[in-house]
């Protein structure tokens, strides 16, 4: 806690108290008809200093002559009043009919009024985005947008994020959206390097119709991030924010604390020593405690004196009572994490020119000891106008560093798995001293015969990543006449990442090497004894260069307002991944090892500990290089026709030419039409005191896309097996057929929606229905080798996605002191596989999606497809063997449910009393399952509380049936022949996938924050214009169904399409507490 507080270094300010020449002004806010407007916000422009009008529209505040007062509030346009000589003023504001004049950033950065849009979009502004003080922009989007599933799929100092808009539509190709920052596409890794504080707004185009202008890349929707380019109101605004965050593990798996080590041993151990014992009591047949086991299937704890591990070279043993430690291994090992985040931004400008400068520094100390990450970023952005010319620019540089624990020496296990293989009686917290050869923490003396000391792992296996990213955009426009403008934009993004993963050699003492056999220790587990040091060096350079030319024509013809945009986009995308490795069990961190690698049966490794340079290694290093480059040219036109601000018709057409397909097949059309009808404008009679406005919209689009990697049209050759022999090289054709006949895939989408505002727009609601047909999907199929190849990408799979989305925003309470805004959204989405590949194959199932996810014709996608126990087909109950009482594994696998949520509900609430604001963000995801493979593994180790559900005693398999006299009857008397290791480890129960398929539904309170705005109290001094103090808790609460007693169902093994699989590769979830101090100057 002390560290936590010291992180919150409150900048100290010595502010001269200056006497203000301000006078007291009283005023009244009214509408055009002179009716008072209650509770308007009244403040000095350029500061948060101000007050609010009362129920009759009256206010009073101090101001100097010449200062500008800004009147704002819901339901009317903002108004500025310059203070003159008078002391009493009346401010007349014009009531807004609705919020349809809100400007929305649409495809290609084209700003359109929301009333003209025939498709659904969502905008998240800076304030909403930063409510949860997210470390990255994706986290800030959680709960804010209907149909957007933002998942934090693992934990640690550098968490991974996955965003999906409207579920998964592609069977194999990635389903993540396109990310656009200031007009330029960036890769998903890049967006997490952007400081959320630098973001002006995020616009989310969920539908293919909205995204159509982006052409081929936008079939999964688009996330458009627009960064700040300065303010317009003259005075510089300097903002300094300091955030201190404490991270504690939460929602840990339920572990048992009743039984110690045993893993199926028999025989006599440490014969002839004072520590001799037998694994199985020869008189009773009961198993004894095995002191070097990782599995916890031993006898119940009894508190008796015992020891762990085996005698060390001095003949001593580590004595501990045979009883559970007060804290489990995770709690003993993991620590509280701390994050310190400093943000400084300067925003200035006037109506013609503006600038923004933002810098950020984040330091994260993780929950795993020594895990650390840092991020520093700087951004400048600005705009300048002179006459008919204008330009704007942004430039962002960031540096990201992370240093996390690597994998273990035996089979590359992650540290969390090592911890979960620690029986409850092990005082893992006291085994830190691995350096001392006589210590029980030393590798040669460590108690566990199968897993190494995690403290050794923390100090000796590290993965270090350094990433520099630059993104710059320059855009120049000319607007010679009112009705025409031309814009040229050039953007570049470069990311250079350097990874180094190393693991020091594990050398064992002669005593440990000799002691292999029954008195086992970890030396015996890695088959080759001493483990050499290992290293992976990897670099990944990615680059994107893009040019856009936009011509905009805007003209009104009577009641018709028209806008025509013609444009051209060209981009080039390049990446170069280089890897070198020596030693075992350090894989590529980011890339894929293309070729090379230490030959079978050969060894390689580092020569010296502490020298992590491939030049100081022996054996043949593995090496690989992979370059990917692709290009696209697109031409497009976009026409909007508005009639009298009531009816809008919009259409676009784009033709793309891509390098990803063979010439002749590489061009395709994207087009769409949409319409927006403001029915309350057409029939003004509909408007009344309840209904303020209403809009109907509809859209149809056809989009094309290419989801192949570069170079997928020309066959390649591999170095032939065994070659080179001496100087003789040889090539053989790759068995993957790079199909030149492939054509782009396509999506047809129909979307309809309604939006309306009631009660003077205090409640705004909308609903959307969409139907997407994604066909001709580029899709890998397995071929029979008689075709000459074993796999090929073909135009195949056909899926249909349908969904409903609802959005609601309400100003529930508006009074002088109280304000309560709530916002809710709900999405219901389903993707169904209509067909897969083809005629000769009868293919009804597609694997290869990952994590046991499959595509099955006629079922929702993605579907978990796993093995099952033998069941009574009539009742669905498990049939157990009439003598052993154990279930058996069925031959066929079963579809166990979808792995993406059917329902996603997001709720945000913001309640203010005077300067105090209380915010909550919550969400619910349901209607899907996940495979709890981590729990399946914990059942193997015997660490899970799940394995003690029957006290490790024989039991009747719940709800089972048994065959009696040729008939299946409910099982009331056949007990499992073993309720311990024999059931939880060896029986088919653990082998069946369905045993661990669990309901993934969860309610989460993502963020709770309480902030106090000190601005009122600072009115007496000049320098500090505003200050806010916020206390915040992220990942505050989670409510799960009882069956999921392991972890957060949102966590996933990978960032790819195959979702719904928890493993021990992710650290447990955590809850964070932050204090945030923010100052405005």
């Amino acid at each position, binding site marked *: 806690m002390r560290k936590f507080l010291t992180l919150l270094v409150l900048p100290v300010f010595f502010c001269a108290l200056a006497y203000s020449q301000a006078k007291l002004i009283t005023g009244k806010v009214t509408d055009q008809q002179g009716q008072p407007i209650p509770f308007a916000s009244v403040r000095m422009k350029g500061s948060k200093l101000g007050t609010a009008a009362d129920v009759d529209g009256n206010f009073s505040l101090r101001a100097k002559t010449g200062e500008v007062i800004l009147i704002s509030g819901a339901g009317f346009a903002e108004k500025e009043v310059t203070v003159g000589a008078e002391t009493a003023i009346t401010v007349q504001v014009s009531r807004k009919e609705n919020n349809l004049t809100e400007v929305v950033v649409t495809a290609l950065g084209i700003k359109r009024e929301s009333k003209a849009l025939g498709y659904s979009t969502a905008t998240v502004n800076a304030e909403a985005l930063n409510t949860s003080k997210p470390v990255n922009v994706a986290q800030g989007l959680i709960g804010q947008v209907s149909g957007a599933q933002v998942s934090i799929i693992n934990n640690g100092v550098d968490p991974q994020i996955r965003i999906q808009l409207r579920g998964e539509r592609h069977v194999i190709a990635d389903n993540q959206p396109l990310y656009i920052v200031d007009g330029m596409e960036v890769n998903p890794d890049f967006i997490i390097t952007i400081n959320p504080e630098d973001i002006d707004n995020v616009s989310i185009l969920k539908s293919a119709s909205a995204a159509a202008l982006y052409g081929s890349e936008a079939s999964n929707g688009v996330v458009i991030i627009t960064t700040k380019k300065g303010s317009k109101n003259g005075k510089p605004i300097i903002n300094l924010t300091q955030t201190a965050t404490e991270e504690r593990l939460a929602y840990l798996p339920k572990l048992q604390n009743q039984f110690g080590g045993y893993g199926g041993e028999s025989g006599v151990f440490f014969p002839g020593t004072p520590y001799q014992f037998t694994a199985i009591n020869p008189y009773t047949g009961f198993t004894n405690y095995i002191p070097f086991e990782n599995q916890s299937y031993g006898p119940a704890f009894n508190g008796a004196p015992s020891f762990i591990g085996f005698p060390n070279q001095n003949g001593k043993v580590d004595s501990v009572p045979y009883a559970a430690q007060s804290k489990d291994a995770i709690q003993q090992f993991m620590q509280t994490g701390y994050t310190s985040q400093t943000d400084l931004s300067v925003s200035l400008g006037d109506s013609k020119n503006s600038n923004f400068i933002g810098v950020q520094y984040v330091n994260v100390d993780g929950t795993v000891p020594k895990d650390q990450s840092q991020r520093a970023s700087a951004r400048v952005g600005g705009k300048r106008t002179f006459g008919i010319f204008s330009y704007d620019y942004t430039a962002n540089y960031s540096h990201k560093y992370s240093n996390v624990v690597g994998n273990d020496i035996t089979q590359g296990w992650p540290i969390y798995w090592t911890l979960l293989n620690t029986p409850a009686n092990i005082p893992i917290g006291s085994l830190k001293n691995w350096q001392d050869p006589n210590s029980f923490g030393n590798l040669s003396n460590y108690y566990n015969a199968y897993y190494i000391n995690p403290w050794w792992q923390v100090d000796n296996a590290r993965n270090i990543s350094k990433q520099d990213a630059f993104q710059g955009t320059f855009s120049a426009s*000319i607007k*010679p006449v009112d009705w025409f403008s*031309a814009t*040229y934009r050039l953007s570049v993004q470069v990311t250079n990442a350097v990874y180094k993963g190393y693991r020091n050699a594990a050398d064992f003492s002669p005593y440990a090497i000799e002691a292999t056999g029954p008195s086992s220790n970890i030396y015996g587990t890695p088959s080759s004894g001493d483990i050499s040091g290992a290293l992976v060096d990897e670099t990944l350079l990615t680059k994107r260069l893009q040019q856009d*030319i936009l*011509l905009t024509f805007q003209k009104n013809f009577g009641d018709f307002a028209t806008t025509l945009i*013609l444009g051209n986009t*060209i981009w080039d995308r390049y990446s170069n991944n280089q890897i070198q490795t020596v030693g075992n069990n350090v894989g590529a961190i980011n890339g894929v090892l*293309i070729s090379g690698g230490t030959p079978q*049966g050969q060894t390689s490794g580092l020569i010296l500990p502490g020298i992590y340079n491939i030049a100081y290694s022996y054996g043949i290093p593995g090496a690989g*290089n992979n*370059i990917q*480059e*692709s*290009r696209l*040219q697109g031409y497009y036109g976009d026409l909007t026709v508005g009639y009298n601000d009531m009816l809008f018709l919009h259409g676009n057409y784009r033709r793309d*030419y*891509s*390098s990803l397909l*063979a*010439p002749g097949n*590489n061009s395709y059309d994207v087009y769409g039409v949409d319409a927006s009808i403001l029915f309350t404008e057409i029939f003004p009679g509909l408007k009344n005191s309840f209904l303020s406005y209403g809009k109907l919209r509809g859209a149809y689009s056809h989009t094309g896309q290419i989801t192949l990697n570069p*170079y997928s*049209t*020309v*066959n*390649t*050759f591999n170095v*032939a*097996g*065994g*070659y080179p*022999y001496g*100087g*003789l*090289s*040889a*090539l*053989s*054709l*790759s*068995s993957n*057929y790079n*199909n*030149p006949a492939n054509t782009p895939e396509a999506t047809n989408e129909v979307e309809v929606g309604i939006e309306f505002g009631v009660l003077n727009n205090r409640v705004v609601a909308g609903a959307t229905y969409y139907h997407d047909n994604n066909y001709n999907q580029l899709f890998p*199929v*397995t*071929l*029979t*080798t*008689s*075709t*000459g*190849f074993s796999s*090929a990408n073909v135009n195949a799979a056909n899926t249909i996605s349908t969904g409903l989305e609802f959005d609601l925003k309400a100003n529930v309470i508006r009074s002088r002191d109280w304000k309560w805004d709530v916002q809710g959204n709900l999405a219901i989405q389903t993707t169904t596989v209509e067909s897969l590949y083809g*005629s*000769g*194959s*009868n*293919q009804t199932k597609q694997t290869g999606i990952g994590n046991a996810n499959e595509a099955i014709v006629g079922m929702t996608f993605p579907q978990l497809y796993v093995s099952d126990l033998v069941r009574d087909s009539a009742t669905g109950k498990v049939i157990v063997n009439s003598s052993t009482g154990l279930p058996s594994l069925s031959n066929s696998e079963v579809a166990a449910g979808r792995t993406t949520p059917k329902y996603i509900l997001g709720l945000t609430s913001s309640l203010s009393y005077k300067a105090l604001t209380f915010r909550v963000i919550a969400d619910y995801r349901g209607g899907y399952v996940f495979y709890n493979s981590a729990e399946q593994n914990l059942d193997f180790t015997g660490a899970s509380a799940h394995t003690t559900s029957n006290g490790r005693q024989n039991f009747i398999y719940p709800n089972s049936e048994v065959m009696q006299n040729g008939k299946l009857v409910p099982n009331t008397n056949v007990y499992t022949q073993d309720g311990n290791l024999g059931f939880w480890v060896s029986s088919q129960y653990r082998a069946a996938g369905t045993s661990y398929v669990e309901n993934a539904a969860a309610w989460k309170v993502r963020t709770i924050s309480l902030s106090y705005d000190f601005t009122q109290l600072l009115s007496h001094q000049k320098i500090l214009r505003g200050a806010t103090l916020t206390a915040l808790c992220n990942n505050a609460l989670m409510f799960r169904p009882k069956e999921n007693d392991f972890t957060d169902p949102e966590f996933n093994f990978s960032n790819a399409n195959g979702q719904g699989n928890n493993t021990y590769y992710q650290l447990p979830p955590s809850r964070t507490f932050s204090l945030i101090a923010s100052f405005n100057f």
Partner: protein
Amino acid sequence: MKKVLIATLIITASGMGCGKDYLSSLQNSPNAPTSSAATPQLVLPAAITNLVNIVNDVTGVIGNPSYESQAVWLGYWNYQPGYSFNSGAAGYIETSGGPQLWDNYYGILTNLNFLLGETQGVANANYHDIAEILEAVCFQNLVDLYNDIPYSQALKGQGNFYPNYDKASDIYDSLTSKIDNAITDINANLNNAAVGVPGVEDVMFAGNMQNWILFANTVKLRLLVRESNVSSKMAYVTSEVTKTASMGYLTSDALVNPGYSASKPNNMYGGFGVSPSGSLYGDASYIGANEAVIDFYRATNDDRLGYFFTPKNVVATSPNYYNVTLPLNFSDYWGNYLGTQNANPDGTGSSNIGSGLVVSPTQSAVMISATESYFVQAEATLYGWLPGGATQAQTLYQNGITKSYEFLGVGGSTAAADGYAATYYGQNIGYVAFPTGASTDSLVHTILTQKWAAMNGISVAEPYNDWRRTFNSGMNSGYPIVPVSIYNAKVGPHMPFRYYYPTEEQNNNNAAWAAAGGATVDPFNSKIFWMP
């Protein structure tokens, strides 16, 4: 104003015209070579090496098509005591799961097909002809395992993802004419300076095209002899043999050696020899002798036993592994009959694979042995397809035995081997002496029995094919006659006749698979077309 508009349109237009190859220049991967880099000189060595690796790889997955299981069925090899009982091999069990041989042969064929496409010109005519000959070997071996297979529609990539099957007999005829073409072509080009001759990349004959003619003619003869019991084709077979008989046949081993070394050993050595670190390679301790073939060597006083197998307890790391002392003590050798995997009576394992097969890491791999060539010629001569009659058949038969002794290095030198061979075939023992004047059937029986005795661990597919093509239902066996498995849970009365098609055909080429009778394949009743 107009100027501004025109200027902008020009800029826009310039953006559009990035040059014609802006997109098409990114078709070829910079990470891996494409066809333009894959010259015949680079593709040929892989095709030859991969092919010899299959035909010479006697170790592989059991139950599915594998030459290892054939070696076990034929009474050559068996699994060492101490390893779990291999019920798959002992029970004649086949599964349709593992398509290894199917995949491997079609994989090589894909490369040969590429080579054929790339070598249309005169300059590469020799490469083209070599590819055709090797293609014939691959397709014939596939037919011998599966009967009807995709042939004319195979290997077309996108052109046909669902190739139909061709009739096995038609494929044989087509292969025969392909070989004829290749022989004619090579012969015509022998003195044509415009035709390139392969160099070191011909890892079998180093560009000696005369040898390729002999090889091709031997392959052709082997293919036609395989049809010896297809009575409807006799006239065709006879004329085909006669057509190229004057070209001659292999008189020495067709050996492949791309440059094997201690770290990249020959397959045989890499299975049974000693690794650079001094430990035995995996198969050496797993696979041992079968008592059936030991019985034959013992009964015929055959010294080759000491080269095919070791005395008990001698392994490749033993100091006396390479010292075979003649005369042999025949009782030192021991193996298990098919269906048993018992320990030796004195508690040790079976005899191990011997030093005649496991010579050194740099030993060459055998594509077709001279032994095989002579036995095939002997049989063709016996049928009258080749001239010389029974006397010539006997000479060729004895040459086959002599070449086997030479291959194994019996006695330590070629001369010694020749002597031991002559002594051996000079014995008046059944299936050793050539019974001139006996019925064709018993002569064939003798030739195929000696062929079996000679090809132990070298090319087990051939004796297996011989056994099938001479299958006599009354006898419930073909030649050679080998003991049937004594495993009581065996699933068939004798070795299987053919293999199931791989599941990938069922799954990914279902219609064609079904049309070819894929669903009705019965390993013990369905036959290869050349079976009686």
